[in-house]
C-alpha cells in the first residue's frame, strides 16, 4: 500500500509538476530612465522630436525585379526556450484580450447609466478631434469665447440637423464650430435607451 502510494506520488509529480526553470538562461530587461527635471536656473528648451533611426536603403526600380524563387529551407524544429514559452503565453493572452469586446468595454457589461456616459464621452471625444479654431482670433479675446450648438443625432449616428443656439459674438469662432460639426458628420449609433434623446437634440457648449 505504501509502495503503491509512493509510486502514484512519483507518477503524479512527473506528469503534473510545473516544468523546472533553467536558471542559466536569463531574460534581458532594459529599464528606461525617465530623465531628471531640467535645472530651473537654465533657460527653457523647446521639446524636440526624437530622431528616427536611419531607414534601411530601399531599392527603387521602375520595373519589378524578378528574382528566382528559392525553395523553403528545411530546418529542424528547435527546442522551445523559456523566452519562447513566455512569448507564446503572452501572445495567447493578447489574442484572448482581442476577443472580448471593445477597449473601453466592461467585462460584466454595463447598466444604462454607464453606457450612456460612455456614449456621450465618445460624442465629446469625436467633436474635440475636429474642434480646430483659426489662430487669427487674438489671444486677448480667446478666453471670452463661448457658444452653443444644438445637434440632432439619428438612430444610425448621423447628424441630421445642426442649429446655433448661442453665438459667441465672434463670427470666426462660430464658423469654426459649425465647420467642426460638418466634419464630424456622424457619431457611433446611440444605444437604444438614448436614441430618442439624441434624436430630439443635444446641446454642445463650446469653450476655448
Amino acid at each position, binding site marked *: 500500500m505504501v509502495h503503491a502510494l509512493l509510486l502514484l506520488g512519483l507518477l503524479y509529480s512527473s506528469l503534473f509538476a510545473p516544468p523546472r526553470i533553467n536558471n542559466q538562461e536569463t531574460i534581458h530587461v532594459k529599464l528606461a530612465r525617465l530623465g531628471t527635471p531640467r535645472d530651473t536656473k537654465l*533657460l527653457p528648451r523647446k521639446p524636440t522630436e526624437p530622431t528616427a533611426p536611419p531607414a534601411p536603403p530601399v531599392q527603387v526600380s521602375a520595373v519589378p525585379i524578378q528574382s528566382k524563387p528559392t525553395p523553403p529551407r528545411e530546418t529542424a524544429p528547435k527546442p522551445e526556450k523559456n523566452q519562447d514559452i513566455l512569448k507564446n503565453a503572452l501572445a495567447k493572452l493578447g489574442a484572448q484580450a482581442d476577443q472580448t469586446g471593445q477597449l473601453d468595454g466592461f467585462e460584466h457589461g454595463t447598466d444604462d447609466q454607464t453606457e450612456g456616459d460612455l456614449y456621450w464621452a465618445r460624442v465629446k471625444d469625436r467633436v474635440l478631434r475636429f474642434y480646430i479654431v483659426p*489662430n487669427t482670433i*487674438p489671444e486677448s479675446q480667446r478666453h471670452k469665447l463661448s457658444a452653443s450648438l444644438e445637434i440632432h443625432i439619428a438612430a444610425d449616428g448621423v447628424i441630421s440637423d445642426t442649429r446655433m443656439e448661442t453665438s459667441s459674438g465672434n463670427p470666426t469662432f462660430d464658423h469654426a464650430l459649425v465647420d467642426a460639426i460638418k466634419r464630424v458628420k456622424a457619431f457611433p449609433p446611440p444605444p437604444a435607451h438614448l436614441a430618442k434623446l439624441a434624436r430630439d437634440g443635444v446641446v454642445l457648449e463650446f469653450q476655448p
Partner: protein
Amino acid sequence: MRLSWFASALTAMAAVVAAVAVARPALATPPKLVIAGANFQPYPLAVAPFEAASGRGESQELFQTLVDDLSASGLFSKAVLNPKGYLADPHEGFTVATIKFPRWSDVGAEGLVKGTVRLEGSQLVADFKLFDVLAAQEQLHKTYRMPADQVRHLAHRFADDLIQFFTSEPGPFESQIAFAKAVDHPRRKEIFVADWDAHGQRQVTKNTDLDLLPNWVPDGSGVIYTRYEDQHPDLVEVLLGSLKNKVLSKRGDLNSGGAVSPDGRKLAWSMSVDGNADIYLTDIGAGAGGEPTRLTSEPGIDTSPTWSPDGKQLAFVSQRGGSPQIYMMNSDGSAVRRLTYQGSYNQTPRWSPRGDLIAFTARDERAVFDLFTINVQTGLVARITQDQGSNSDPSWAPNGRLLVFVSTRSGKPELWVATPDGNAQQQLTHGGDYSTPAWGPRLP
C-alpha cells in the same frame, strides 16, 4: 431585519427621486455637453494667382508680395498659401456664382483670395475679394488705386486689411524697419531704412564710421543711433526727411542704446561719465534742455533701456548681480526689480507694444545665443529660437505679433522674422551683413 427593510426602502426612494431629477430636465431641455480645449491652428487661406488685364509683371509681384506677407504673419497655413499646392483655374471668374468652391475645399482651403489687376496710365488698379469657401460667400471686397511703382506698397496694404479683417487688429506690413549693415568693410556699418520685409533699402547715414543700434522716434520721422566717431560712442538722431544728423549726447566716455518714450518727449540711454555706464533720462523735443537725470547708480554696467508701451516703466540690462540680466524700474528710477533669473547672459530687451512680454537675447548653457520672451507679470520665460544658428537683437512689430531679428542660420548674419512663439519664421535678407534691427511705427 427591520434595519435592512428600512435601508431598502430608503434606497428605493432615493432611486425614484434620482430618476425624477434626471428625467424631468431631460423632458424640458436637451442634455448639454461641454466641449473645452480648442486647437488653435493657422487658418487655411488660399490665394489664387491674380487675373491681369494689363500689367502682368506688376500682377505677379503683387501676388508674391501678398503671399510673403501673409505667410510671415503666422496666421495662415503655409501649406495652403503655397500656390504650388494647387492648380487654379484661370477662367474660374471672380464671383460666388462662377467660383468652384468644392475644388478649393478639396485642397484644404477654407478661405480664398481672388484679385484682378489692370493698369490705367501710370496707375495700378487692383480689385480684391475674400471668400468663405465652406459657406460659398463673399466676405470682403477692396479696391485700391496706386502709382504702378508702388506695387509692393499696395500688396502690404491689402495684407494689412486682411489681418484687420481676421484679427480685428491693425496689420504690421505698412511699416518700416531700420538696421545697421556693413558697407564695403565689415567694420564700417551704416544705418539703413527699408520696408518691413527689407525691400526698398535706403542708406540714411554716410559717416564711414561704425553706426549701430538704431531706434525709431515714435512718429517715424527719425532714427536715433550710436555712432562711433573716432572710437567715441555718441548718440545721434538722423532725420529721415532731410537725412540731417543731430547729435543728442557726446558726454562722458560712452553714449549708447537711445530709446524715446512712447509720447516722444523723453530719451533714455546708457551713458558713462564716471567710468560706469548707467541709465539716464532727458527731455527732448520742444522746450528740451538741462542736465539729464541719472536713473541708476548701482555698481555694474546698466544699458539697453526699453520703454513699456504706457511710458511708465523701463526695462534694461544690468550687471549689478554679477552677470547681465534684465531688470525693470519705474521711469523715475524707483522700484527696481530683477526680471530674469534663468540663464547667465541676458541682453537686448525689447518691450512688446502689447505690454505683456519682453523679448531678449540670451546665451544658453551650450553658449548659443537665442531669442526668448519673459512675461512681465508671471516671470515665465519662453523660448522663440532653438538649434538654428545664433539669434539675437529682437525687435517687435507695431502690432506685437511679429519680431524681426538677426540670425546666422543661413551663413551670414541676416534679418529674419518670427512669431513670438517661434512657430513661423521667415528669412528676409540674403547675402548681407546685418545687425541690430529696429521695427518702426506704422506708416501714416
